[in-house]
């Protein structure tokens, strides 16, 4: 599963790089003109979202625990700030909070509970898929692929004979696909499927989110 998603990220990167190359070739053609076309508009877009997450990789529960209950589901929250330029490749930052997993059980009658979550701090690149159909008016324009890389802050909480709160950093990546539906001049609603992978900590989750996309500034 992880391998396939990694492949998806690489393919997305290839598609993005090819699109950038195309955009540059168009620009080169434009330079022949005496008066270059006006640039813009540029937009600063803020996205907030939430939904359901599912921890999708190996998880370890200590053998000493009895009557264990494991939960792989959580409610993620996403905040993304993007710069939409006048070409397809968009760049921005993403953060948020996602439950990875939790488990509870008993050790000699004493309750034990472990909860693991992470906060992504990622540099993300996004691109609408319209170029695939060859027309800017295609519905494919509303589909976007997003990839990112950065740091995940892994947070763990242990409740067993006291409480221990710890944080550790892990490099990682993300990949997502989304569909965006306009609902107003500056507002859109989006559905996004996303894979978070904190590689060093071996934490990974699949999320499905509904997002509100707000075009905060234009110039």
């Amino acid at each position, binding site marked *: 599963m992880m*391998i396939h998603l*990694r*492949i998806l990220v*690489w*393919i997305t990167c*290839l598609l993005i790089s*090819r699109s950038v190359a195309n955009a540059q070739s168009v620009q080169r053609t434009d330079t022949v003109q005496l008066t270059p076309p006006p640039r813009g508009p540029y937009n600063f877009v803020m996205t907030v979202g939430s939904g359901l997450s599912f921890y999708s990789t*190996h*998880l*370890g*529960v*200590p*053998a*000493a*625990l009895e009557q264990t209950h494991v939960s792989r589901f959580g409610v993620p929250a996403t905040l993304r700030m993007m710069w939409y330029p006048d070409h397809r490749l968009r760049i921005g930052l993403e953060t948020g909070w996602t439950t*990875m*997993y939790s*488990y509870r059980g008993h*050790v000699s009658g004493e309750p*034990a509970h*472990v*909860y*693991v979550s992470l906060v992504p701090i990622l540099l993300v690149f996004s691109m609408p898929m319209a170029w695939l159909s060859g027309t800017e008016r295609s519905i494919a324009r509303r589909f976007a692929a997003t990839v990112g890389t950065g740091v995940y802050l*892994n947070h*763990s909480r*242990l409740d*067993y*004979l*006291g409480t*221990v709160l*710890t*944080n*550790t950093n892990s490099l990682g990546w993300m990949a997502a696909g989304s569909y965006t539906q306009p609902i107003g001049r500056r507002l859109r609603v989006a559905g996004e499927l996303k894979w978070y992978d904190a590689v*060093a*900590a*071996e934490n990974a989750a699949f999320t499905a989110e509904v997002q509100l996309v707000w075009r905060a500034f234009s110039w």
Partner: protein
Amino acid sequence: MKSVIYFLLGVLLILTGSCRKNYEAPVPYAFNNTPGAGHFVPSVRQSMEGVYAVSDGAGQFGGQVVLKWTYLLNGADTNHYLSIFTGTDAGYFNLEGNPKADSLVLNGYWRKLVNTSTGLVQLTVKSKHNGRLQVYDTNKLETADTLVLEGLYSNDKASPTQKLTLTYRRPLNSRPFSIMAHRSGGRTSDLLPVSENSVEMIKLASRLGATGIEIDVRYTKDGVPILYHDNALNLRLIQKNGLTGPIENYTYEQLNTLVRLVNGEKIPTLEEALETVVTNTSLSLVWLDTKYIGPMDKVQAIQQKYRQKAILNRRNLRIIIGLPTTEAVDQYKALANKDNTPILCELDTAITRSLGARIWAPRWTLGPQTQEVLAMKAEGTTVFVWTLDEPKFIQEFVSQNNFDGILSNYSSVVAYYHYSEQQ
């Protein structure tokens, strides 16, 4: 069209290159651990130790190997194991006598620490008399006879089919020398069958060539000295359980119940580790590496308790507190009573002298430091060097004959070069 081809080539490249290889080297042999040595009585074991020439099998294990017997005490029982150190790719053999065989038969496995190569081994001890191989009998051994170990080896779990012949060349180098194994015997990252800084690794250390061990001491939140190298729980050392962060944040009970080292062992307390050293092994030196920040009195008390226990057990065992930093030196200086508290100083010679440390241990990257080493030795100070893993430098440092011991992650390599050194 061209871009499509490039795209497809890219996808193909990703498909073939995106898998992360998981390295493993499982031990292919299950030891019987039968108490006693069977046919391998003390005289046989003693006569077998030495430097051997490799004829069949030299391509895999090099032209020369070292044979050394070790043992493990289990209450009233003793288990004997034969180790073979190859000097090639940090290779070693672990063998045990086959009690069911009529003759001197050894079974076990070989492994190379620099990769995942491993396999099974079956050897029979024979003697060459007038050019002919015959059953080995110590009572009938004549001066001109030569010991020969003949048998088969394999790769992985396959039945042994490839020929291996070892012929006795000379006795082991008898110069006193400390072969100290890092992290209680070896690193988890070298795919050893047990985890570093575990009780199980301490029991394995001698079979990997060590005569002493270095162990990493930290305190839990409730002040229990335990063995753990890194400053945080991480997947390099422990099984995945969701717990991360500094080990000092957790109490001993929390760690003992919920945390297991990568091969399933518990994180041992310093007391459990030293109890194992004293009651189960023949190790002669324990180097307590000070990884903690805080008072040293608890470690000192444990060190003195097991020093006494070793004396009562008539064990030749030194338990030394290592001082790797100025903070550790300050912790040592803060001790109310420094009697019977041997220390090892990793800092410069001036600090070592000022502390009255019995052992000076400079890092190997500072070079041979011949003048300083000889000066310290002239003053009666023992000099070790750490942490030396490169075979070329191990050979060089051993042959220079200046140091009294080497700390290494590859104690089998140090053992090979030390025992095979021509006196």
